[in-house]
């Protein structure tokens, strides 16, 4: 399967902080990749880097980003802009702040057709209403004239999706698409996204919620402190994690409750990017940590077919056979 | 005063006060004698009697420097008296309104709203015009327009302090209202009142000059920066310095007062002076105009007060 997007050894610095320190991932047509991690792990920055939308203080310092054979790092600002919306689209966590409060949603969706496809005002409006209907917004013709604050959270996220998918992009990057929503609405939105994926859309879902990931993605990259610590197919990774951090994340996940356990937060806090621990960045919080972890930063290595882990003792973690939870717990 | 700007502004103002207090003794201003030979001499000229006119002379041969020095005295006197009188009235009324609330507050606040309903300079012009030109009347006219601003500041502080625990406990201990106001409420109002007073000193100076410029301020036999500017306006072609010099002095002093006021405001703002928010350079927030009597502030206040 050829990948649409291939990111290798991406590094992003945010001011003085090395926020992303060599991350690789890729996604193919009609598949979904999930990037998982706590806030501050660099997952959002990695995806913004793909689109060239990093905040002013942040910049890509190393690595390569290839889109459909093109080197995006070599692209000029305008070339990159041309790709946005038409080839790669993005939706964000909080649709209320991500939508312009002073413009009607019909205008904001129609803008895709007007500015990017050169359609007239009326035609753009008609297409915007179509796009809204397609994502399940009832009474779209009337609602197109409403402002974002007049919609519920779920409907707003549908508006965002309609806008992002308006020009049939080949890849959708969804940054915490359901975090601000309640559970039922969350399920509806995920169903909508899965449907589009079956139709051929490639997706990258960025989330801290393993439950969301399990329901949408085929493969996962787990990030911690700016690095990928584990990657692999969702099913394998969920059955038997190969990194203690993934193990911890699963124990901490709210969906652990579904399995009859109480969510068990990981001890300690994510490290400050400006003052990373020596050796493995996770070792202060790791129940498996030994002397070697304090001095030697583990390489990301293949630990099973199709799976990588950045843990000195990945085999030991794997051999726990999917018994989710911390050994201490 | 940490910043250089505040230090410079403070020095300029100290010089201004010294000149206003002692200057007239050194460079006496004689508004009666007319010396035709010395008419409209440019700055740096030597007078017929051998004197030296650093800032030139006017159409009657009078020394502009002496006029400006004399004017500084009027300016300082008016500004300080107005702020003290207006500040005192505002303090008392603001304390009463903030402490007692209820109809006392309603009456005082509504009175303030009505007065701020039209631009304060108009009220000052009207009052000064009706009262007639005299130093006292200028002070009355301006003090009447200023008390509201002080009253609002004090009322705001009093309102927040009124329900604090230590006030409650004083009340339980049987302290009288007057005692509570003087001992417990007043101290919390002093700082914001001083900040407002600093700003108002500058605005009052400009207002006094404006009234005198219009012929509604101090009588013509007294030199004021405003009346000297009005006089110089007729001689722009032949003697620009008559109008330019007093205006420059006024502008300089007012800007320095503004800089000091800013510094005072920043110092008194607890959020800013706490360790977290300390920054070497501070800028005014948008929507906070420098002058107290401008659009947003006046109307913003009145709208809020009315909507209460």
């Amino acid at each position: 399967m050829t990948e649409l997007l291939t990111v290798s050894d991406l590094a992003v610095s945010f001011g003085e902080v090395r926020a992303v320190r060599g991350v690789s991932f890729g996604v193919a047509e009609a598949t979904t990749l999930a990037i998982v991690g706590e806030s501050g792990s660099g997952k959002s920055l990695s995806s913004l880097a793909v689109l060239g939308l990093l905040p002013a203080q942040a910049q890509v310092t190393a690595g390569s980003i290839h889109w459909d054979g093109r080197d995006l790092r070599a692209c000029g600002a305008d070339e990159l802009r041309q790709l946005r919306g038409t080839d790669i689209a993005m939706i964000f966590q909080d649709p209320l702040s991500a939508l312009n409060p002073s413009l009607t949603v019909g205008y904001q969706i129609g803008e895709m057709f007007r500015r990017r496809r050169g359609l007239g005002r009326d035609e753009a409006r008609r297409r915007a209403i179509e796009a809204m209907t397609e994502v399940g917004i009832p009474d779209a013709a009337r609602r197109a004239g409403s402002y974002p604050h007049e919609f519920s959270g779920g409907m707003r996220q549908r508006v965002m999706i309609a806008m992002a998918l308006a020009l049939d992009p080949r890849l959708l990057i969804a940054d915490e698409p359901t975090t601000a929503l309640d559970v039922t609405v969350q399920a509806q939105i995920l169903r909508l996204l899965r449907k589009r994926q079956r139709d051929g859309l490639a997706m990258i879902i960025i989330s801290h919620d393993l439950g969301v990931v399990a329901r949408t993605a085929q493969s996962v990259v787990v990030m911690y402190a700016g690095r990928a610590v584990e990657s692999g197919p969702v099913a394998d990774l969920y059955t038997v994690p190969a990194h203690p951090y993934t193990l911890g994340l699963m124990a901490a996940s709210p969906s652990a409750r579904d399995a009859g356990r109480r969510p068990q937060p990981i001890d300690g806090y994510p490290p400050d990017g400006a003052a990373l621990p020596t050796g493995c960045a996770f070792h202060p919080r790791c129940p498996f940590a030994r002397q070697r972890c304090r001095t030697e930063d583990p390489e990301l290595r293949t630990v099973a077919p199709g799976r990588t882990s950045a843990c000195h003792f990945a085999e030991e973690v794997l051999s726990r056979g999917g018994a989710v939870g911390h050994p201490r717990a | 005063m940490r910043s250089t700007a505040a230090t410079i502004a403070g020095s300029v103002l100290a010089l201004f006060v010294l000149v206003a207090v002692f200057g007239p003794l050194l460079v006496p201003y004689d508004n009666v004698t007319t010396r035709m030979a010395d008419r409209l001499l440019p700055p740096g000229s030597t007078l017929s009697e051998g004197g030296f006119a650093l800032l030139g002379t006017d159409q009657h041969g009078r020394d502009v420097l002496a006029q400006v020095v004399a004017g500084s005295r009027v300016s300082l006197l008016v500004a300080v008296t107005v702020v003290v009188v207006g500040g005192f009235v505002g303090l008392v009324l603001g304390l009463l309104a903030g402490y007692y609330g209820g109809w006392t507050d309603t009456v005082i606040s509504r009175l303030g709203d009505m007065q701020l309903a039209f631009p304060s300079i108009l009220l000052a012009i009207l009052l000064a015009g009706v009262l007639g030109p005299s130093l006292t009347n200028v002070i009355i006219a301006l003090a009447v327009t200023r008390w509201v601003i002080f009253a609002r500041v004090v009322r705001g502080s009093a309102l927040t302090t009124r329900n604090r625990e230590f006030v409650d406990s004083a009340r339980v201990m049987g302290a009288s209202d007057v005692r509570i106001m003087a001992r417990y409420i007043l101290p919390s109002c002093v700082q914001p009142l001083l900040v407002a007073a600093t700003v108002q000193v500058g605005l009052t100076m400009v207002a006094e000059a404006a009234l005198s410029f219009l012929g509604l301020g101090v009588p013509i036999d007294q030199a004021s920066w405003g009346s000297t500017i009005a006089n110089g306006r007729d001689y722009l072609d032949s003697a620009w310095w008559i109008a330019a010099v007093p205006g420059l002095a006024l502008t300089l002093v007012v800007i320095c007062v503004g800089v000091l006021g800013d510094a005072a405001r920043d110092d008194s703002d607890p959020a800013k002076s706490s360790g977290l928010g300390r920054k070497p350079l501070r800028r005014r927030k948008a929507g906070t105009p420098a002058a107290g009597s401008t659009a947003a502030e006046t109307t913003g206040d009145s709208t809020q007060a009315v909507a209460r």
Partner: protein
Amino acid sequence: MIIYLARRLWQSVFLIFGAITIVFLVLRVIPGDPATLILGSQATPAELAALREEMGLTDPLFEQYVRHLAEVARLDFGESWRLGGDAFASVVDRLPATLTLAGYALALTLLIGFPLGLHAARHTGRAVDRVVSYLSLTGQALPSFWVGIMLVLIFARMLGVLPGTADGTPVSLILPAFTLALPFLGWLARLVRNGTLEELGKDYVRTARAKGLSERIVFNVHVLRNTLTPVVTVLGLVLGNFIADAVIIEQVFAWPGIGSLLIDSIVNRDYAVAEAAIVLIAVFYIGLNLLVDVAYFYLDPRITLETV
């Protein structure tokens, strides 16, 4: 919505009523005897008494006040003894001139202040940004009448590029309009700058970029749209202040508006005209404030009934 507007309308009526009351108090209570004023000090006691009776001055003050309110409601401010004829009519005659001047000043404020603010927002920390910062800090502290005279000195007398008195031609209005605008230029620019910077940091800007919109569209459509709302509303307040400040500036440029009429009337004790002028300006000022609130309501879609 209707309730809110009705409440604001009622507040405005109350404020206008307050303004009329204050002007009544200043004009009828302070000056002493209007009869002496009208007839002069040579009038006989009998003549004075007769006029007092005729004017209703012997009635209790409260009766006079109620009668006066009724007169003002009919726009009857009495006759001008100086100009002859209806006082209100003579003020209305001067209204277009003042509005023209204020309109020019508003146009200048917008044409200079808005682009200046946008430019400063795009180049923070650079020279333009610092100019805006200083201008907003000092602009409102400047004595505008003096600034006007200095502008005349430089542009009319020294350079000879612009006329020094306003004779009604658009070119002649540049200097007075600029003088009026200057205090608000920096203020508006700063408001636009800070508003733009704030908007640029918001999430919807990132969304707009993610849509592949050009930077021009992102800025001119998405950001500007949100910066514009507070600016448009603030313009009403600025216009109100222009009309008030024009009182002094019209005098500087000999522009025959309400302001110069007001000053002439006060100096000549023609109080019927003075009152009509002040009440009209106050009504404008209060009315513009009301308009601003209503405009804000319509311009910002987020303000709904619940948030009012």
